[in-house]
């Protein structure tokens, strides 16, 4: 049977995919430009079909702590928000990472700093991949560039989160959240039964039976020697994730003399710019990181051997460009082009920047 192709917004795709893959709980708070996630769930009433719990929390802080509670009890739980709301969630995200709990967070970025604008931005790159909250921790960060990937990364995010007992985040932006595209949603699955949850998460706090010790979900350890051990174990896990889970897409890189690196909606614009440049005879390739952490450093370093220069295109003041430069180790020039505060650049601006900064 042919799969049904439907037209919807990226935010709606997140909500519908969550219901279909059998998410147990969603906890959120309204904020533009991602309120359609909670609205779609409220309209769909999954508590009557799959049994999924949906709560509009009193704050972003409460929502992320509900995620902590649900994740600590072994369930598939998620939240979504936009930049200022995600800042509020940082404490909870740090606790979730510290307690090694699986969950999914969605950030549909808007321009900042502060209350900023409701227009699209990618200015939360640093917050997402360099920390955000306190302590040495990492999030598995997925950057969708289409409505289809919004739907697909809900499942992928949970898969990786449970595989590594680590929070995963979908870092989208207002463009991807708000635009409508065709999408094939995942098949409707049943939620795990309580028995299946207990089998998958023997560490979860669900009520202690007589055959085991109490399960305690905590990030607290006052003994510094023990705390260092916990940290070292976390770093081992992060190294494993870096080894196994890097995802990226390359477009027309084989003969490229110049490379654009861009993620999310920037990659869509960059791809158009690439096509324009190629029509003019400039051999440009596009490398789109899909995982922002772990970052595709090796792939970029490999391409740096063949190209004359790299342009990092971002909807921010130049954040990912730092990671590109680290990957390239000064072997070729790495430049940045971006627009700020909710402005989305035209592909021609990208082509002009490529010429001006790298070709001259």
């Amino acid at each position, binding site marked *: 049977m042919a799969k049904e192709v439907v037209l919807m917004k990226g935010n709606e795709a997140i909500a519908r995919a969550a219901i279909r893959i059998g998410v147990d709980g969603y906890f959120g708070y309204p904020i533009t430009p991602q309120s359609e996630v909670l609205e779609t769930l409220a309209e769909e009433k999954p508590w009557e079909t799959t049994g999924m*719990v949906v709560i509009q929390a009193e704050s972003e*802080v409460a929502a992320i*702590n509900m995620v*902590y*509670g649900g994740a600590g009890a072994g369930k598939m*739980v998620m939240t979504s928000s936009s930049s200022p709301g995600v800042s509020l969630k940082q404490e909870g995200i740090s606790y979730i990472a510290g307690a090694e709990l699986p969950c999914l967070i969605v950030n549909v970025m808007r321009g900042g700093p502060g209350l900023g604008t409701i227009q699209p931005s990618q200015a939360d790159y640093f917050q997402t991949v360099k920390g955000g909250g306190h302590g040495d921790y990492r999030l598995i960060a997925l950057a969708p560039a289409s409505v289809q990937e919004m739907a697909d990364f809900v499942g992928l995010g949970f898969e990786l989160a449970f595989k590594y007992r680590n929070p995963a985040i979908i870092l989208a932006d207002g463009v991807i959240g708000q635009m409508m595209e065709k999408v094939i949603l995942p098949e409707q699955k049943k939620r795990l039964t309580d028995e299946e949850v207990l089998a998958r998460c023997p560490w979860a706090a669900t*009520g202690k*039976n007589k055959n085991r010790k*109490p399960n305690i979900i905590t990030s607290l350890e006052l003994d510094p020697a023990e705390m260092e051990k916990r940290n070292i174990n976390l770093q081992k896990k992060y190294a494993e994730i870096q080894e196994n889970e890097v995802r990226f897409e390359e477009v027309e890189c084989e003969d490229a003399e110049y490379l654009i690196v861009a993620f999310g909606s920037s990659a869509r614009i960059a791809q158009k710019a690439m096509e324009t440049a190629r029509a003019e005879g400039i051999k440009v390739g596009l490398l789109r990181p899909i995982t922002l952490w772990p970052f595709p450093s090796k792939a970029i370093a490999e391409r740096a051997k063949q190209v004359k220069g790299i342009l990092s295109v971002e909807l921010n003041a130049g954040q990912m460009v730092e990671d590109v430069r680290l990957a390239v180790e000064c072997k070729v020039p790495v430049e940045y082009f971006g627009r700020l505060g909710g402005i989305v650049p035209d592909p021609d601006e990208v082509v002009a920047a490529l010429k001006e900064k790298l070709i001259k």
Partner: protein
Amino acid sequence: MTKEEIIKAENLVYKKPTLMNDNPMHYCPGCSHGVVHKLIAEVIEEMGMEDKTVGVSPVGCAVFAYNYLDIDWEEAAHGRAPAVATAIKRLWPDRLVFTYQGDGDLACIGTAETIHALNRGENITIIFINNAIYGMTGGQMAPTTLVGMKTATCPYGRDVTIHGYPLKMTEIAATLEGTAYVTRQSVQSVAAIRKAKKAIRKAFENSMQGKGSNLVEIVSTCNSGWKMSPAASNQWMEEHMFPFYPLGDLKDKE
């Protein structure tokens, strides 16, 4: 009488609840926490809910509650226990879920989480230890510190012109539609301990029967923070705390 004769079953007048383990408590001698921990352990055992209970511990002196009661626990960020408990209970509706929070955790940094979880009528119980001071951090002013009471951050006494008034969270909770049972108890005497245990039992039963949210405040002592002996603390609590925080049921939606 030999020891063997004394420990015969028919002579048994007191037994430590089996859910209480032998870990040495970090609480100061004379502190109310130990008694309340024991009451919770007894009630869980008497209800036969040992394998179906999840506790949520706070940030504050009771952060390590999970070291003493052999049940499953989640340790919450400061003030967020009611949000954590909300999700656990909604996702595992047949579990007994309670939070255990101090006054700073519940009535200050977690005011929003507390009020909204109670007002949503979450089928959980919040145990609220009110000793009018921040114990864990060394005796600073709490939202419930009495007017005139001296702490490390109001060393000349709580002055309403500077610090505002102590907050009666339990009275607020009683006005919320979502609450089923709201009560204020204490554990300074055998009679008070028995009443407090009954209150905890009622709250736990309510939360399992889906009656709504439950708040059990225990007016408590912090003899280290108050800089008094345990006995003097109990007396001071009766003379100063009880007039401002009167004991008894504030709401009982039977």
